[in-house]
């Protein structure tokens, strides 16, 4: 589904991603973990098409070259990014925004648009999924939302947009236990053999709720270790010290158990 090869990204002349390789198969859930400044968010936004990045390498989704597309075309191709800091948009009604997004994607795919009335049912289902109160959709997008509401709104958008690949950037940051539980339940409900998820996170906590098939460690712009969910448990106990302050070329070779240290 997603194939990333030797992905590089520089921001203002400073290299952040330094040759990232990753393959994600259909239906798989991957977690990318790493210390602050390792390039986790830059990876998400390189895939999404944020302005101001100098990008190298390749990234394809279902064979389509993502890096060549405008952000909206990447969404139409099936990519969804859950923002670490969802943007507040005062004055733009949440419901109107959601329907505009869904119809823009449908239009781009040559599908028929969905009317206001039919969309209400779609939106209601998504609201139930993330336990949103009625009235939530009549507010402005993210404006004045609590941290938990903003993150739930991200998952709500994912639910109505039904992406092929969702990249959730620090979706767990700043959440209380209740919000974390709701969001995890939402993501789990959206798991599907045809839908893949990449969770970017600093902490192992989220992975207690959403069990990943694979865990990758991102350090200094490269994936330096990969494994199953036990890798996350190891990181939780030992931190990233194993992977820091070493020649990175060596780091990639090292077993993730940490035993060799």
């Amino acid at each position, binding site marked *: 589904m997603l194939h990333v090869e030797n992905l590089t990204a520089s921001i203002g002349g400073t290299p952040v991603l330094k040759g990232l390789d990753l393959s994600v198969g259909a239906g798989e859930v991957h977690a990318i973990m790493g210390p602050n400044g390792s390039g986790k968010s830059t990876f998400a936004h390189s895939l*999404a*098409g*944020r*302005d101001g990045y100098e990008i190298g390498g390749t990234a394809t989704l279902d064979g389509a070259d993502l890096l060549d597309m*405008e*952000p*909206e075309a*990447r*969404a*139409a191709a099936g990519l*969804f*990014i859950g*923002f670490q800091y*969802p*943007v507040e*948009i*005062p*004055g*733009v*009604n949440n419901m*109107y*925004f959601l*329907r*505009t*997004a*869904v119809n*823009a*994607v449908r239009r*781009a795919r040559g599908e028929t648009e969905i009317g*206001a009335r039919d969309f209400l049912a779609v939106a209601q289902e998504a609201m139930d999924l993330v336990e949103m109160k009625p009235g939530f959709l009549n507010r*402005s997008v993210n404006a004045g939302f609590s941290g938990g509401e903003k993150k739930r709104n991200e998952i709500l*958008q994912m639910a109505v*947009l039904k992406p092929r690949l969702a990249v959730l950037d620090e979706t767990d940051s700043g959440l209380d236990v209740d919000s974390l539980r709701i969001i995890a339940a939402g993501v789990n409900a959206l798991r599907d053999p045809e839908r893949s998820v990449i969770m970017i996170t600093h902490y192992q906590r989220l992975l207690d709720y959403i069990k990943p098939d694979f865990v990758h460690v991102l350090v200094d712009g490269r994936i330096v270790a990969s494994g199953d969910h036990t890798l996350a448990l190891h990181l939780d106990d030992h931190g990233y010290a194993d992977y820091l302050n070493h020649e990175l070329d060596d780091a990639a070779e090292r077993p993730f158990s940490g035993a060799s240290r």
Partner: protein
Amino acid sequence: MTVTTTAAAGSNPSPAERLEPMDVIDHPTKRDEAWRYAPHGELGRLSFGPQVASARSVPAEVAALIPKLDGPRIVMLNGVVDDAFSDVADLPDGLRLVTLADGVNQQPELVDAHFHRSAEDVADAFVALNLAFGRDGAVIDVAEGHELDAPIHIVDLVVPDEAQNASCSGVVIHLGAGSSATVVETRIGFGNEFGGSNTRTTITLDENATLDHVVLQDAPSTQIHLTRMEVTQGTGSVLRARSFNLGARYGRIAYDVHLAGESARAELSGLYVGTGEQTLDQQITVVHEAENCTSRQTFRGILDDQSTGVFNGGIAVRPGADGTDAEQSNDNLLLSNRAEANTQPRLEILADDVSCKHGATVGQLDDDAMYYLRTRGIPADDARRLLIRGFADQVVHAVDIEPVRMWINERLGHTDG
């Protein structure tokens, strides 16, 4: 500017006598702060004189531009009431609605108060011209305790003709104690000829009266539109004024609000949307004269191409007006690097125990918001429109008369959804 002072038959006092204030007031120049951004060359080409009924009737094309409101209506063409298009039959209980020309006899006190201005109250030459020539229009008088549901609609249509390209008109609004009403003033026009209009509305709100007042200004881009609202509010009265300054080469909307009775409240909000070479000018002064009054000024501008927006907002707190709560905000969205926003707060505080806040922003579309919308599949052009609409909606939403809101959204191209 050209002024014709030939007296219209039967006018009393004669326009020449009414023009007296002109002798003591100079024409505005660029040096006057309140007229700094006005196109003075074009203002000088306006020609005023006694209003004469136009030989034309309201063109059908223009009639189609008028918002469709259910309720009484007075329609003017070039400052003279057009009976055929007006509808003052079946007025609700408690409402007297007559033309300003008829009001001279039927509502003499209100009409006298409208025209009676001492020289120092005449802010500028255009007020003087309006006093001289703004003889027709509307008088709205709501009796004590009556709450009127249907909006009262005053429409001013300007179709300049060459002999006299500018018109004057007046609206008088009086709300008796405890009454409430909604008044919509629509100013539009037709044709490609140069010309203009100069309107003046005087508003008196008695104790605990509530007025919702909307100005829709959408004159053709070849015209100048000048309007001024002079408001006096009694104890506990509420004014909610919304202005939409959308049309005209130069569109000027001025408010001069006096909070004369305790605990009065004035909420003024407005949206100006400029394209081409428009200059849209808001000149606001709110004077707190009594204790515990509240005022809000919330104005937003969206400026594209080479347009210019002006917000000159004043708050004056008179000695003794303790407990004043005044806020002012002006936010501007620039859509082109040749567009310009000028914002100028004027605060004059002569009382203690005053809360006075003001803030202004000038910015472009938020890059982060654009990116966020695009990652959701919304193409750049649509995302741009959505953000512009969102910015405008924060003012448009405050209008709770649905046909007016629809008219504004249609005018701004915000028709989907």
